[in-house]
């Protein structure tokens, strides 16, 4: 495990993330234009979707995939429940904020998954291509659970509910992920060939620059975070450890290969900070972004990138060995 962790620390991908954290902590003015950051995140989703789809076009669809998808949806639906309880009683958050934060931890972080994909690849345990589909289907169910928890007893106007459901099920990242996944399946490897240079070769480099930006944003948020109590900080580390471990076990239980089981653990451990916050602004505007973004982006995300991925990979290997 130590070796694993170390090996990841010499990868440019991780090093650029650390550079971002460092630069922001030193209060350097370094900043990536937001249009470029947004563009890179769209590129990463399109690329990961395509690659997953192409892989599935090769491997073909089978029961294993259906099982993985079902487990993913279930996990996304249930994870917020435990998180909500902990946030209410241990961290003493009000109902609205507890529901909002719970939704983030039930959902997933695309970039954490992408990084895990690269790291696991380097460790010669690449996850199966269909895990991208699992990633996509895990994004939204948690949002619904979170909203139910936050809005217990209240009700939205119809107009708002319609807009909300569209935002939840057709939010940019879900559409782009599933869309390019489908494109990958249809185009197959021959079709992928022509766009490979941009979407495959360029991938890791873009990931470096994007993680540089994420490091800058995460650290800056943390330094300005006023609403972050020590109890919330503790939970932001416990949630990924707990959910991730369960995830790896579940993944192994349903017969995933170690790489995919580790990836599934990372998905469970990760907290959304792109799709869910946008949905929360719409659905729970009263919830404080200072809480849910600081936890998911400034604490859980770095933890997963720097330690989580290595841990869950080691655990998956261990269980596979057993």
């Amino acid at each position, binding site marked *: 495990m130590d070796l694993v962790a170390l090996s990841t620390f010499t990868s440019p991908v991780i090093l650029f993330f650390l550079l971002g954290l460092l630069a922001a902590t030193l209060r350097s003015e370094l900043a990536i*234009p937001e249009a470029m950051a947004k563009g890179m995140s769209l590129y990463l989703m399109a690329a990961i979707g395509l690659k997953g789809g192409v892989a599935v076009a090769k491997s073909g669809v089978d029961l294993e995939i259906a099982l993985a998808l079902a487990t993913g949806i279930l996990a996304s639906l249930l994870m917020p429940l435990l998180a909500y309880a902990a946030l209410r009683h241990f961290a003493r958050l009000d109902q609205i904020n507890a529901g909002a934060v719970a939704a983030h931890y039930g959902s997933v972080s695309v970039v954490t998954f992408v990084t895990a994909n690269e790291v696991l690849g380097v460790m010669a345990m690449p996850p199966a291509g269909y895990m991208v589909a699992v990633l996509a289907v895990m994004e939204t169910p948690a949002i619904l659970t979170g909203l139910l928890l936050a809005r217990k007893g209240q009700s939205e106007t119809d*107009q*708002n509910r319609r807009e909300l459901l569209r935002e939840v099920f057709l939010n940019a990242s879900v559409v782009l992920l599933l869309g390019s996944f489908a494109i990958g399946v249809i185009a197959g490897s021959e079709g992928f060939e022509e766009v490979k240079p941009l979407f495959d070769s360029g991938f890791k480099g873009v990931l470096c620059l994007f993680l540089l930006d994420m490091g800058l944003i995460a650290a800056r948020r943390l330094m300005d975070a006023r609403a972050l109590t020590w109890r919330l900080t503790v939970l932001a580390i416990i949630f990924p450890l707990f959910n991730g471990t369960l995830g790896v076990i579940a993944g192994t239980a349903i017969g995933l290969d170690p790489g995919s089981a580790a990836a599934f653990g990372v998905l469970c451990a990760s907290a959304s*900070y*792109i799709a869910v916050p946008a*949905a929360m602004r719409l659905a729970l*505007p009263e919830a404080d*972004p200072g809480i849910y973004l600081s936890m998911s982006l400034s604490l859980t995300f770095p933890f997963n990138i720097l330690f989580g991925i290595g841990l869950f990979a080691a655990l998956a290997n261990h269980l596979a060995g057993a």
Partner: protein
Amino acid sequence: MIETVTRKRIEILVDSPLVRRVTAAIEAAGISGWSVIPVTSGSGRVGRWHEERVTGADKSIVLSISSTEKAAALAEALAPILTSHGLLLTMWDVEVIRGERF
């Protein structure tokens, strides 16, 4: 000397994901149009933010020119969600040409 008429200029600072909600209210108030201006950073009670389009935590300003009555109606309509949605609404009198539009 070209003559001008007085209208209200309303500017509403809002989280970008909520812009649709505000423009819907504007159209509901029967106002003929609106425009959106980007906001790149800011600071308030819940802390500072900077260029965060990626997390959807960025803000925009929705500006709209309208008659005083419609402006009042819009303020009326938005008042209940101002605090919950963290909107910042300011309005003032401006001179416009082609006032009949509004």
